[in-house]
C-alpha cells in the first residue's frame, strides 16, 4: 500500500520534472545516417522520431516513455553490426528501419536470430518479407505494389483518357538493370499481361548510363504511346531530357518512384519538359487530405522540429508505419517479443484513416497487405496526387 503510493508520487514527480528518468523503453532506429544514402535515410528516420515524440507526449506506451537508440547502417556489414549492438548491448525491445532494402535484409537476420521484432517502414524489395521470418514486419508498400498501381493507372485512367482501348496502346518498359528495376519491370509485365495490355519492348540499362539517345530513338521508331520507366534520379533526368531533345513525345510517361518524385529532378529537367509526366510512389504531400487525415498535423510538427518542409514522402510513410505499430503496442500487456508479434498481427485498420491513406492488416508473410502507392502527376512544376480518385487532388491531365 505504502509502496505503491510512493511509486505513484515519484512517477508524478518525475513526469513533472519532465527529464525522463522515469521508466523508459528503448527502441532501435536503424537507418543509413551517413554515406551515399544518408539524405533519404535521415529523412526516413525523422518520420520515426516524430511518431515517437507524439506517442511520448500522449503518455508513452504502457506508461513508459520511449527512447530511440540510433544505429548507423552505412553499409550491409555495418547494418549487421549495429543490429547486434542494439539488440545485445542496448537491449532494445524492437528495431525500426531501414529505408534501404539491402540493409534491411542483412540486419533483420540478426534480429530474427535474437528473437527481437524488426519493423521495416520503408524498404520496397520483395525479398524483405519473402523469407519466412517470424519477427520481421513491413508496413510500407513494395515494388510489387508499385507495378500493380502503374498498370492499374494505365488501364483505368490513361487508356480511357487517351480514348484508346487498353489493348491498342503500345507500351514500353524501360528500367535500370539492378534488382530494383528488374523486379518492378517483371511485375509490370505480369500485371500488364493480366490486364491484356500489349508491351512492345522491355529494355534494361545500367543506372550509371550517360547516353540514352539510342534507346529514345528505338522507342520513337516503334511509335510507343506509353513509356514506363523504373529508375533512379540521374537516369530519370537523362531520359526525360533526351526524349524531349529528340522530339519524342509519347502520350504518357509513367515513372516509378525514385527520381521521378523529387523536386530537384523537375528543376534539372525543366518544369515545361516534365509537365504532365506521371509517377507512382509512396504517398506525397499534395494529396486530398480527407483521405489522409493527420497529414497536415504531421507536416506542421515536422516544420516545427526540423525547420523546413519534409524533403520527401519517406518521412511521412515511416511516421505512419511507426505510429500504427507503437499505438498498438501501447495497448498490449507487455513488450515480450511474442506479445509484440501477436499484437501487430491483430492490427486491422481500414484505408482512409491514416496520414498516408493506406490501411494496415498484416498477411501470413508479415507484409502489410493494405499498403498501397499512389499515382502522381507533375502539373505546373508541382507533383500532385491524381490516382486513386479518393486521394486525388485534381484530375489527371492527358494529351495537349
Amino acid at each position: 500500500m505504502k509502496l505503491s503510493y510512493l511509486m505513484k508520487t515519484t512517477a508524478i514527480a518525475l513526469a513533472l520534472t519532465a527529464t525522463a528518468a522515469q521508466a523508459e523503453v528503448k527502441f532501435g532506429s536503424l537507418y543509413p545516417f551517413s554515406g551515399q544514402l544518408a539524405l533519404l535515410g535521415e529523412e526516413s528516420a525523422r518520420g520515426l522520431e516524430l511518431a515517437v515524440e507524439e506517442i511520448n507526449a500522449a503518455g508513452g506506451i504502457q506508461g513508459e516513455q520511449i527512447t530511440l537508440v540510433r544505429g548507423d547502417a552505412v553499409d550491409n556489414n555495418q547494418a549487421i553490426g549495429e543490429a547486434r549492438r542494439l539488440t545485445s548491448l542496448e537491449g532494445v525491445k524492437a528495431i525500426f528501419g531501414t529505408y534501404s532494402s539491402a540493409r534491411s535484409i542483412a540486419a533483420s537476420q540478426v534480429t530474427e536470430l535474437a528473437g527481437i521484432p524488426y519493423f521495416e517502414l520503408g524498404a520496397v524489395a520483395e525479398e524483405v518479407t519473402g523469407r519466412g521470418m517470424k519477427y520481421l514486419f513491413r508496413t510500407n508498400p513494395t515494388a510489387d505494389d508499385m507495378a500493380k498501381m502503374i498498370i492499374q493507372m494505365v488501364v483505368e485512367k490513361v487508356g480511357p483518357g487517351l480514348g484508346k482501348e487498353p489493348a491498342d496502346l503500345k507500351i514500353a518498359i524501360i528500367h535500370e538493370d539492378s534488382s530494383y528495376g528488374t523486379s518492378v519491370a517483371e511485375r509490370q509485365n505480369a500485371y500488364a499481361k493480366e490486364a491484356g495490355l500489349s508491351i512492345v519492348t522491355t529494355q534494361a540499362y545500367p543506372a550509371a548510363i550517360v547516353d540514352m539517345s539510342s534507346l529514345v530513338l528505338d522507342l520513337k521508331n516503334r511509335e510507343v504511346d506509353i513509356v514506363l520507366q523504373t529508375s533512379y534520379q540521374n537516369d530519370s533526368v537523362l531520359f526525360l531530357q533526351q526524349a524531349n531533345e529528340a522530339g519524342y513525345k509519347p502520350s504518357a510517361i509513367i515513372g516509378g518512384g525514385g527520381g521521378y518524385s523529387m523536386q530537384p529532378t523537375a528543376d534539372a529537367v525543366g518544369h515545361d519538359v516534365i509537365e504532365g509526366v506521371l509517377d507512382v510512389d509512396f504517398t506525397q504531400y499534395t494529396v486530398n487530405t480527407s483521405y489522409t487525415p493527420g497529414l497536415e498535423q504531421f507536416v506542421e510538427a515536422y516544420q516545427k522540429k526540423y525547420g523546413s518542409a519534409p524533403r520527401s514522402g519517406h518521412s511521412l510513410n515511416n511516421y505512419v508505419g511507426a505510429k500504427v505499430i507503437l499505438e498498438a503496442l501501447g495497448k498490449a500487456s507487455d513488450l515480450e517479443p511474442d506479445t509484440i508479434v501477436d499484437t501487430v498481427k491483430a492490427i486491422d485498420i481500414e484505408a482512409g484513416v491514416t496520414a498516408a491513406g493506406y490501411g494496415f492488416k498484416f498477411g501470413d508473410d508479415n507484409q502489410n497487405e493494405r499498403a498501397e502507392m499512389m499515382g502522381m502527376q507533375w502539373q505546373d512544376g508541382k507533383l500532385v496526387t491524381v490516382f486513386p480518385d479518393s486521394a486525388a487532388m485534381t484530375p489527371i491531365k492527358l494529351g495537349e
Partner: protein
Amino acid sequence: MNTFLQVLTNGIMLGSLFAIVAVGLTLIFGIVKVVNFAHGEFLMVGMYLTYVLTTWMGIHPFATVILVAPALFLLGAVTQRFLIQPLMSADDDHIQIFATVGLSTALINLALLVFGADIASTPASGLRTPLQLGPVRLLSGQVAILVASIAVVVVLQFFLSRTQTGRAIRAVAQNRAAAQLMGINVNWIYILTFGIGAACVGVASVLIAPLYPTSSGIGTYFVLTAFVVVVLGGLGSIGGAFAGAMIIGLIDSFAGFYIGSDLREVAVFGVFLLILILKPSGLFSSRLNLSHVSP
C-alpha cells in the same frame, strides 16, 4: 537511312564526350604511370566548381574555364607532389593506386558533406538547344564538346611534339632514368604532367556540367569508360585516346539501337577484349610503351 545517320551522330557525340574525359587520363596513365582512380572525382570537383561559379556569378558555364582549369591543374599538381611523389620510391608500385582510391573516396564524401546528396543542375545556358542538321538532330552543347575535344587533342599533340617541355615529358615517359641523366628534373615533369592532365579534366567538366546534373557520384559514370578508352588507344597516346573514344562511342550507340540497350555494354567490352587480344598494347601504342621496361 535517317535513323542510321542519327545513330551515327549520337555515337560520334558520345565518343567526343568520352574523348574529352579520357585525354587527361591518358597523359597521367601513360607518362606518370599512375593509375589515377580519382580521375572521375577530379571531373566531379570540376563540375561542382562550374556549378558554383555559374550560379553565384551568373556567368556562362564556358566562361568558368578560366578558373576551373587552373584550379584543377593545382589539384592535380598537389596530388602528385604530396600524395604520389612520396610513394614513388615505395617498394610496391601498387601503393600509389591505393592512394588514388583513397583520394577518390575522400573526395566523394567531401562532396556529400558540402553539397549533400541532391543533384546540382548547372544552368544549361542554351547548350541544350537541339539543332536540326538535315536529317539528324544534336545539341549545341554536344557540338561544343566535339570541337573542344579535337582542339584539346591538337594542342596537346603540338605541345608534346614541338616544345622543349613537351619533349622532356616524352623523354621521361620513355625512360625515367635516362631522362634524369640528361638533366631533366623528373619530379617536376611529373607534377607538371599530372597538373596538365587534371586541367584537361577541368576543361571537360566545364563542357559536361551544363549537360549532366552534378552529383557526388557522377565521376563513377565516366571513369570506367575512360580507362577502357585509354587502354584501347594505347597508354599515353593522345590521338589514340581520341580514336579509342570514338570507337567506344560508336559501338555503344549502334549496339544500343540495333542490338538492345541491355547488351550495349556486352558489345563495348566484347570489342575491347577482342582488340586487346589481337593487339595487347592498344591500337595506337607508340614507342612510349617501351617505358614499361624502365625501372
